Each structure stands twice: as C-alpha cells, then as structure tokens.
C-alpha cells in the first residue's frame, strides 16, 4: 500500500486508513520505545501516547515520503522525555528475559528458533547495559537500519562522529554480551590485558 496515499486518507479522517497505519508501524514504534526505555510496560504506554500524538498532528506531516523518519523522530523525542522524567527514580533492574514481548523471528527449525530467541534476549539485555548514545546508535542504525546521514541529522552529530561511534557501540555491545555469557573478560576500550591465557 502506498504510504503517501495512506497518510492522505488518514489526514482526511479515514478510520480504516488509520488502523492500517497503526498496524503497520506499531511493531517498530514499540520496539524502539522498548529499546530506549528497557521496560515493556513503560514502552507500551509511551507507544500508545506516541500514536495519539501522531494522530493529533498528522496534518503537520507535509512530506508523506518522509513519514517514517518523522515518526522515528517523534518516538525518539518521546522516549528521551520519558527518560528525563524517570531520572529521579531508582535505576531499573535488568529485564527478565521471559517477560519480554514476543520478537519477530524467521527461524523455522525449533532448535534454531530456540537459539535465535535466546540470542535475541541476550542481545536485548546487553543493549540495556550500553551507554545512552551507544544504545541509541545501535537501535537506530543496526536494529532499525536507518542510514547514517539520517541518524546524524536526528542526533545533531557530524557524520564522521556517528560512524566512529557506531563501531565503538558495536564493540561495547559485544563486550556486554561476552560478560553476560560469562566468557573471558575482554579488555577495556583503551589498552587493557593482552591475552588472558598468555599470562596464565
């Protein structure tokens, strides 16, 4: 279905078009909110508020071809607002993997499915251990697949900074995964130990 036509129908108040629009984007909106906030219930509440806000300001989206960018921006802003308001509260606990929302998975084989789910949950938990900017870049670039230029605009950072940040964020994520798996302690970002087995 053509995005521009769908949006135009929504702008005229067509409930069916709006339902399709919500169904099309709700999974992505909830995922981004979840990755930003790290809490399922909070993410669902924020995602609902986001759709209400989008509904009320549909007329301000004058470029239908950039709707997804516009929507992602609204989601990001809403999540950052929520995080700011949450600052005074005690830090959250790691998310129990079993309580998380069901994730999309393409694996057909049950064993592969189990492995895939386990890895998704591990990555999700590791994501919450990243620093704010690194998590944001992973969410926008590696999870949502946004182009670097768009991310640079959204984060108001130079393109080169986003590129270098992206590499560092992936390494930080890998380090968090290794720590969660209980693997060999990786070195820090600068220098660090050289080969644990070499000194044993």
């Amino acid at each position: 279905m053509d995005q521009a036509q769908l949006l135009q129908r929504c702008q005229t108040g067509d409930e069916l078009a709006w339902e399709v629009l919500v169904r099309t984007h709700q999974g992505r909106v909830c995922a981004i909110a979840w990755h930003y906030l790290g809490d399922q219930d909070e993410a669902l509440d924020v995602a609902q508020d986001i759709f209400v806000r989008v509904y009320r300001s549909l007329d301000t989206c004058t470029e239908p071809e950039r709707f997804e960018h516009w929507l992602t921006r609204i989601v990001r802003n809403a999540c950052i607002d929520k995080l700011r308001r949450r600052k005074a509260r005690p830090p959250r606990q790691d998310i129990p993997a079993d309580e998380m929302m069901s994730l999309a998975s393409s694996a057909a084989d049950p064993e592969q499915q189990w492995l895939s789910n386990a890895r998704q949950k591990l990555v999700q938990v590791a994501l919450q251990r990243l620093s704010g900017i690194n998590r944001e870049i992973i969410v926008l670039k590696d999870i949502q697949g946004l182009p670097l230029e768009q991310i640079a605009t959204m984060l108001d950072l130079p393109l080169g900074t986003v590129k270098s940040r992206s590499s560092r964020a992936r390494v930080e994520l890998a380090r968090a995964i290794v720590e969660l798996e209980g693997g060999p302690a990786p070195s820090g970002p600068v220098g660090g130990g050289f080969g644990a087995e070499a000194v044993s």
Partner: protein
Amino acid sequence: MNGGRRDGEGFLRDVLARTSGSPCGRAETLLPDLTDGLLADLDRQLVQAHLEHCAPCRALAVALGWAGPVLPQLAVVDPGEAFTASVLARTSRRQRLDLPSPATARPSGMAGVMDHVGRWWAERILVPGFAPRVAYVATVVLVLLTSVPGAPLRAVPGAALKLMTAGPAVLPGTAGAAQWVDARAAEGQAVVAGRWDGLAARLREKGERSQPARAQAFAHAAAAWRQLEDRRLSEAGMEGLGALDASRRAWTLWWNDDEQTTGE
C-alpha cells in the same frame, strides 16, 4: 612445549608493555570492519593473527559475528491485539473532526504564513528541551532590549513601574474611564451600605421584640436549676417546661415579624 609457549607469550607481553603497549585496543577498533568484511587484506591478516593468541578479543569477535544478524530481528515486536485496540479507542474520528482540515484547505497570504509558522512551532515544540531553550533566548533578548545601556526599550521598565505606582488615571485617554469606574464603585458602595443598614435595623427590631420572652426563658431555667439543687424534682420539671415554652415563644417572635410580644 607448553612451557616454551608460555615463556614466549610472557616475553612478548613484556616487550609490548615496554614498547607499543597492548594491541587489543587497536584490534577492537578493527573488529567491526573485520566482521563486516570491510578490512584490507593486510589488516585482516594482522587482526586474525592477534585473535589466534588473544582469547578476550576472540570472544568479542565471536559475539560481534553472531550479534550482527540478530540485531535487525529486534526491529519489530508484536505488542498484541489489545495494543491496537487501545490506540484506536484513544484516537476516534470525533477528535479528528475537531482539528483544522488538512492540506487541501490551507490559507494563503499572511494567514498562510501564520499557518506555516504555527505548524513549524507545533512540530518543534515536541523536540525535548526546545521550550527551555526558547525561554532562555527570550530572556536574553528581553534583557538586551531593556537593560543594556543604549537599548531601544531601556525606558520601558521604569515607565511601567511608574504606571503601576500611579494607577491607570495617568494613562492618556483613560481619565474619563477612571472617573466612570470610580462613580460606579461609589454607587455600588452606597447600595451595599443601605442594604446593610436595613438588615441591621431588622435584626435589632427582632431582638427587641423577642427580648421579654427570652428573659422569661432564662428566669424559668434559673428557677428550675434552683429547684434541682433543693432536690424538688417535680417543681424543677415544671420550671423546665416553662423555660422550653418561653424559648419556643422567643424563637417564634424573633422569626415572625407579625407576632406580638405577650407577657406570661
């Protein structure tokens, strides 16, 4: 053999510690490109050689390798049908109809410019931190316009303070209005005072009218107390009934303006 290897690794570690330092940091910066297959041949060989001997970096490379394809799978979650229903319930057509019509009815000219500015503002105000920044800029501009020596509006705060102190009568063209307001206020005050005087006279008259009955009630009550002290209960009861009757009569006289004062 193993002991020789350990010695060799230990020797290498010592040499690196005294020369270039640990190569793990350099390896880590190249690992993402190694995973993505973007490294030049020589760099790839160098990193792979390092990974053969460095378990922590190897663990990072393994995690990077499998996490890469997993990340896009997290792009979408299924919030459930209840979520969709809840969103649709909160976004009814009635709400939409309250809004201005879409792009088809955009005004032109100055109204169009204001409409455009309004839309821009509505979009920008959603950006976190935008409102405090605007408030900060507005404060700075206000200070520059009114407080800096030579500022165009430097006299405004002083004039405003003077006006607040002197009242609205000093404003040109408002003297007549101020007089009219003062006259209406005086009229209102006179009406209120007249009504208050009338009410006070009625209350005074009610008090005078019911005074004998109130006096009788107090007298009966005092007599009943004395009879009680002398343990003459029958007489005390009679006096109590007299006090109640006098009280009822006092209330009737106070409340009804046409009742006449009667002695016992």
